[in-house]
Structure formats: structure tokens, C-alpha cells
């Protein structure tokens, strides 16, 4: 049973999200009396007729003065079963950017709908973004059930409507729960007001949800972060490759290939401060020693010879654009992928997704702030990647402004692109002409160590 669950939630002021979060915090004793007193004081000073629990997370001066949420806020609560990190994002300003940010690390997306209103535009947006970011689990809280007399038909109708929409998305696991955040029905414990509901309370569901198999334990992926070389008297020749396992289970003795060079060797040992590691799996941070003295450095990726990521320079990806200045074809941008930073050129912008209708608009040629769209990139040197749906770590990139250093957007890799022939007048990154070692689905190179391991 994994002990940490990361939850992303989003919603507007009036759907009761703050009340629900406040209740989860309060009922798990994660809300402190001085915090509550401060919230009550500020609500009173602002002349609110109620205690606005949104103030718990809205910590910035501008937020408290204007009564708005600017940014992703992180809240922490725990039960004896599990610890929770809750990324709470506002429902209005910079909505897409913040929701994408919160969802990027989430195991579960928590969506709220008002039982009186049912599935609305914002619900569909949330669901689409959760699907785009491949959040493995989704909970639809049908809130304010007390205002519809806990009517089962209303709940079932909303649930059906949502399932119908979600069928078009890639959401594996959807659970609908009838709740009243205000009176606490089905939040922490099952409510007598909904005898027809045979599922779990929200908190029970969050505590018991099985998430261990959401990780990719099949494809070994180890991006090298840092080379550990003590050069000390006791360890003059120690050389270890430090990193966080991004996929699969890596063991001492395993045959491995180092990409993009394509050299093969074997794992001599896996080290940690706490002792040797028999099996390293995501998200462990470890240090890997290799049998052969190869030239391995930050940005390289260790995989198994018979299970390699794609290595290439032409990549299709979905992007979420996060700045005012639009993304244009042929723009040159920085790309950070696992531990590797490269430059890239935007070779194509195929379409923009209307996140309300899921319609693809192929007539556009730029992406603006908060747009989601599909683009193609050509990178200056090869990336070792997987499709995002296969691996959220080796399938994700940051897009960065090379001049100002700003983060421009986030990308989720779809797969290799087949670049359109660029005219000779097109500027091309110099390294494009170099065929990368270990290009797409390359045959394993000859091993440096005998296969017998003698």
C-alpha cells in the first residue's frame, strides 16, 4: 500500500471546493486552530457573512484582498492510512496553466459538480486536462446533494452524463460520489442520507485507492543526473551514476545499454547511503555502478538492450502553452527532457484542441496562452523518450525561452514525427544533419562485456 497520494483539484468558488477541502483538512485534524482563527478574522474584516475556507490556501496579499486564487496552492493532510498532497488550483484566471501544473504530478484528479447544475463546461475542461496529463484516477464529487434532497436519480443522471463524456477521453478509472461538503455527507464517513449509495466515502476512497500499479515497472529507464566521483583516499576510483529511476526494475547483474551512445555493459551494483540496493524502481533515487568504464554523463539514459526508448530528434507532442507571446512555427526554443537540455525548432503546429468541445482546429498556425495543441519539434541532439502515455517521466518536456529563461509551456510526447521537407531557406539547427547514434529502434550495439559474464 503506497503511503503517499497526490491529488489535484480544481474548481470555481461556488461549487463548494473550498468547503470540501476545508472539511477534509478539518476532519483529518490537519487544520489548526490558529489557522482557523486567522481565516475567521479575515472573513469578518472583509465583511463576509460566512467563514471563507478558501482563505486557508489563498495566502498571498493580493489573493486575500481581492478574494481570488492566483496560483496552485499545496495542502498537506494525513490519516493513519496515508499522507496526501493536495494541489489546489483556481477555476478562473490562468486556469489551464495551473490545472496542467497541478495534474502533472497527480495520482488522482478530484472534480466537483453542483448537483443542481450537473456537468458543466468547466467539468468537461477538468476531465479533458486530467486525461491529457494522464492522471490515472478521477473522482467526480457530486456536491450539494443536500440541496436536491439526496435524490438518487439526480446523482445517477449526472454520473451517466459524465461517463458518456469521459468515454471520449483516456480516463481509466472514474468514481462518482454523492456528497454534501457543507454538512459532511459521504466526505469522511458514509451518510445515512444516501442509503441507496453503496460506494465508499470520499476519504475512504482516497485512503484505499490502489495506485502502486500506476507506475511503469516494465520498461527500465534511468536518466543519469550526476556522476558521483569521490576521488578520496578510500575510494580513489569510485564512479557511480546518480539518478531517479523513471521506469522498470533495475538489478545488479542486469545487462544494460547506455543511450544515446548505444554502448552496452552490466550493472555492477546499485548504491545508496543506506546500503546496497537489490532492486531499484520508480521513484527511488539511487546510484548505479557499471561494470565497464564507459563514457557516461548527465543526460544519458540507461535502459535494457531488449527494451529501449525511442531515440530521435523529430518528435510529435501535445503542448500546453503558458505565456502571452504565441508559439509560432519555426520558433527556436529550449527543451528540458529528463536530465537533458537541448535546443529545438518548432517544425509544425498541427492543430489546437478546443477544450470545451474537444474539436480540433487545424486552421490555426499559432498557439496562444492557455491553448492546448499538437506540434512537432526537431531537436539539436537526440532525446531518449517514450510516449507520455507509457511513461510520464520520459514522455514529458518543458519548453523554455532561450533568452529570458522563462518556462513557456509543457509538452507530452506522442511519438516520432516524420518531418515535412523543409525548404532550403528554412533555418535548421546545425546538429540536425548528424545522424544520432542509436537512432529510432536501433539494433543493440555489440556488447563490451562477454555475454557469459565470466
Amino acid at each position, binding site marked *: *500500500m*503506497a*503511503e503517499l497520494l497526490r491529488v489535484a483539484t480544481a474548481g470555481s468558488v461556488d461549487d463548494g471546493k473550498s468547503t470540501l477541502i476545508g472539511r477534509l483538512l478539518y476532519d483529518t*485534524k490537519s487544520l*489548526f*486552530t*490558529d489557522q482557523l482563527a*486567522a481565516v475567521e478574522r*479575515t472573513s469578518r474584516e472583509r465583511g463576509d457573512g460566512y467563514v471563507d475556507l478558501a482563505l486557508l*490556501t489563498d*495566502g*498571498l*496579499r*493580493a489573493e*486575500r484582498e481581492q478574494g481570488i486564487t*492566483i*496560483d496552485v*496552492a*499545496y*495542502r498537506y493532510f*494525513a490519516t493513519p492510512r*496515508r*499522507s496526501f*498532497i493536495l494541489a489546489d488550483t483556481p477555476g478562473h484566471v490562468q486556469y489551464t496553466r495551473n490545472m*496542467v*501544473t497541478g495534474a*502533472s*504530478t497527480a495520482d488522482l484528479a478530484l472534480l466537483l459538480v453542483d448537483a443542481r447544475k450537473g456537468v458543466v463546461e468547466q467539468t468537461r475542461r477538468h476531465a479533458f486536462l486530467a486525461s491529457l496529463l494522464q492522471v490515472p484516477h478521477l473522482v467526480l464529487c457530486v456536491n450539494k446533494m443536500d440541496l436536491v434532497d439526496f435524490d438518487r436519480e439526480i446523482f445517477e443522471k449526472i454520473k451517466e452524463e459524465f461517463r458518456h463524456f469521459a468515454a471520449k477521453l483516456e480516463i481509466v478509472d472514474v468514481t462518482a460520489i454523492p456528497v454534501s461538503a457543507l454538512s459532511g455527507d459521504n466526505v469522511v464517513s458514509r451518510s445515512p442520507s444516501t442509503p441507496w449509495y453503496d460506494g465508499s466515502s470520499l476519504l475512504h476512497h482516497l485512503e484505499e485507492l490502489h495506485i*502502486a500499479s500506476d*507506475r511503469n*515497472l516494465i520498461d527500465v529507464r534511468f536518466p543519469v*543526473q*550526476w556522476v558521483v*566521483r*569521490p576521488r*578520496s583516499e578510500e575510494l580513489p576510483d569510485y564512479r557511480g551514476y546518480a*539518478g*531517479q529511476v523513471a521506469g522498470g*526494475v533495475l538489478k545488479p547483474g542486469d545487462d544494460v545499454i547506455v543511450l544515446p551512445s548505444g554502448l552496452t555493459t552490466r550493472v555492477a551494483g546499485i*548504491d*545508496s*547511503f*543506506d546500503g546496497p*540496493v537489490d532492486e531499484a*524502481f520508480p*521513484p*527511488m*533515487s539511487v*546510484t548505479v555502478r557499471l561494470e565497464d568504464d564507459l563514457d557516461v554523463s548527465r543526460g544519458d539514459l540507461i535502459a535494457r538492450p531488449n527494451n529501449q526508448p525511442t531515440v530521435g530528434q523529430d518528435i510529435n507532442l501535445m503542448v500546453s502553452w503558458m505565456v502571452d507571446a504565441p508559439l509560432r512555427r519555426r520558433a527556436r526554443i*529550449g527543451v*528540458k527532457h529528463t536530465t537533458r537540455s537541448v535546443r529545438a525548432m518548432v517544425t509544425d503546429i498541427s492543430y489546437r484542441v478546443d477544450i470545451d468541445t474537444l474539436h480540433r482546429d487545424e486552421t490555426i498556425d499559432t498557439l496562444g496562452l492557455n491553448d492546448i495543441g499538437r506540434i512537432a519539434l526537431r531537436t539539436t541532439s537526440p532525446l531518449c523518450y517514450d510516449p507520455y502515455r507509457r511513461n510520464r*517521466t520520459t514522455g*514529458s*518536456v*518543458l519548453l*523554455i525561452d532561450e533568452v529570458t*529563461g*522563462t*518556462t513557456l509551456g*509543457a509538452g507530452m510526447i506522442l511519438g516520432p514525427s516524420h518531418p515535412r521537407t523543409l525548404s532550403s531557406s528554412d533555418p535548421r539547427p546545425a546538429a540536425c544533419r548528424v545522424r544520432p547514434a542509436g537512432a529510432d529502434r536501433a539494433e543493440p550495439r555489440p556488447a563490451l562485456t562477454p555475454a557469459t559474464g565470466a
Partner: protein
Amino acid sequence: MPVRGYELTHLQMIEAEAIHIFREVAAEFERPALLFSGGKDSIVMLRVAEKAFWPAKLPFPLLHIDTGHNFDEVLAFRDHRAKELGARLIVASVQAAIDAGTLTEDTRPGASRNQLQTPVLLDAIADNRFDAVFGGARRDEEKARAKERVYSFRDEFGQWDPKNQRPELWSLYNGRHRPGEHIRVFPLSNWTELDIWRYIAQERLEIPSIYYAHSRDVVERDGMLLAVTPLTLPRPGETAVPRRIRYRTVGDITCTGAVESTARTPEEVIVEVAATRITERGATRADDRVSEAAMEDRKREGYF
């Protein structure tokens, strides 16, 4: 490392995340430094850093902004730990800046040196040309911190602009900056006070004795218990009384309050922390009580 069904405990997961952050910074920055005060959060942070680079030594120095208003036990501990790790310790002193006339101290009663740390910190960063500074701040401590990134970008004046932060996704951190700018890095962002104590217990970390229950003469002031020291004498009308206390946070001695406690081990502290209904800073830090946005305002000016 005990493993069952390829699952990690909560502490193992947040530790793995913090180790990842340390290595990213070491790899991508020219001159990082780690803020080490001898306080419990920085002790935990230092242990995680030690793990990140083991069996090599830390690839960066330790930096302490010494207010001159410290608990002796904490300073002794600071020096002991730096020596044990073979780490270089750089101390930037608020007192030295006051003596040199570059800072003017607020000498009114009740004034702390908290604000004075900021210019000394910024000078130390500039003098040493640090481009990344690790801090032990946690998001559960304070509501302005709840909104701060793991990589907190600071301009040439060290200022934090909460409305203009870079989005932070997955475990991909963007550390790009220009000369003169720097990044504050908070590897323990996702840890809570309880996590810190559980980690201290799990790792059997040595921490200064004042974090455990001891007898001390204290006065009650503004609802807080303040130790009687040469810097904090009882005011007229106040009486010093001995109490069994421990510290939940350790900062400037003039504004850090204690809580009544009988806890003498990490395990006993965990029981107390789990049962408490008041936040760490709400209970013990007068500096955060100045206004609703006291922390945000200090951070904007370049505070930790």
C-alpha cells in the same frame, strides 16, 4: 532498504524527491550553497544532501546567516556537524554588519534581528557569487510558502515575485537565470512538521538539545513563552518562572517562543506534534504575527 511489493513509504518517497532536487541543482548550477543554521529543518535537509552525493562529499559549502541572537547550543551543534561532514562553513554575521555600520539595528524593545538577516543574506550571496541557495522551508509552515515553487526565482535584488512564478511541472525544474539573479531551492517543500520529526526518528539524527523538554526560566509575553536570556530580560510586570519546555522552531532568540512539553525523544515529540492543534509558527514565532502577510512581505524583500 526494506521493500515490499515495489512500494515505498511516504518518507522514502519525499526523500527520493528531495535527493533528485539536490542532484539537479548540483548538476545545473555553478555555485550552490546550503543554508545551515543548526535548526531541525536544516539538519534534515543536510542529511538528505549527504545521501544525494554519498559516498562523495557535499559539492557545495554551508552558509549560515548568524543574527548574533542565537541559542549557544545551536551554534555549537552547527560547527560540530559541519566538521563531521568535512564541509566548508561560511558564516555571514549580522553583528559584524552592524559593527561595520552597514546596518542599523532597531533597538526598541521587542525588536528582533529577523529583518536584518535579509541584507546580510543577499550580501553573502553576492559576495560569494552563489547562484543557487538551498533552504529548508516547507510549504506547510506558512501560507505564503504554500504558494512558493521548489525553485524560487530571485531577481538581482533577491526579490520574490509571487504573481510571476514559473510553472513547475513533473520533476522537471527550470533553473535558468541570468548573472546576478539566483534561485532559492527548497528540497523539503512537500514535507510537514510531522515528517521532519519522523525523519529525525528514523535516521536517529542528532539535534540540538533545546528541541527536547528541559527546564528553563521563561516569561509569558503576548501568549508565548520566552526564555530569559541576557537579550530577553523580564520586562516590568513580568516574572520569570521555571517551566518544562521545548522549542518547535529555533530562530532569533528574541522572538522565538517555547511550548510546554515533557517530550525527551523524537518519538515523544511525534506524539505531541500529532496531537497539537496550533501550527509551528503560529505557536512560537512573533515575527510571523506582525500581519496576515508578514512572511510574504519579508520574502518579497529577499528573505529565506
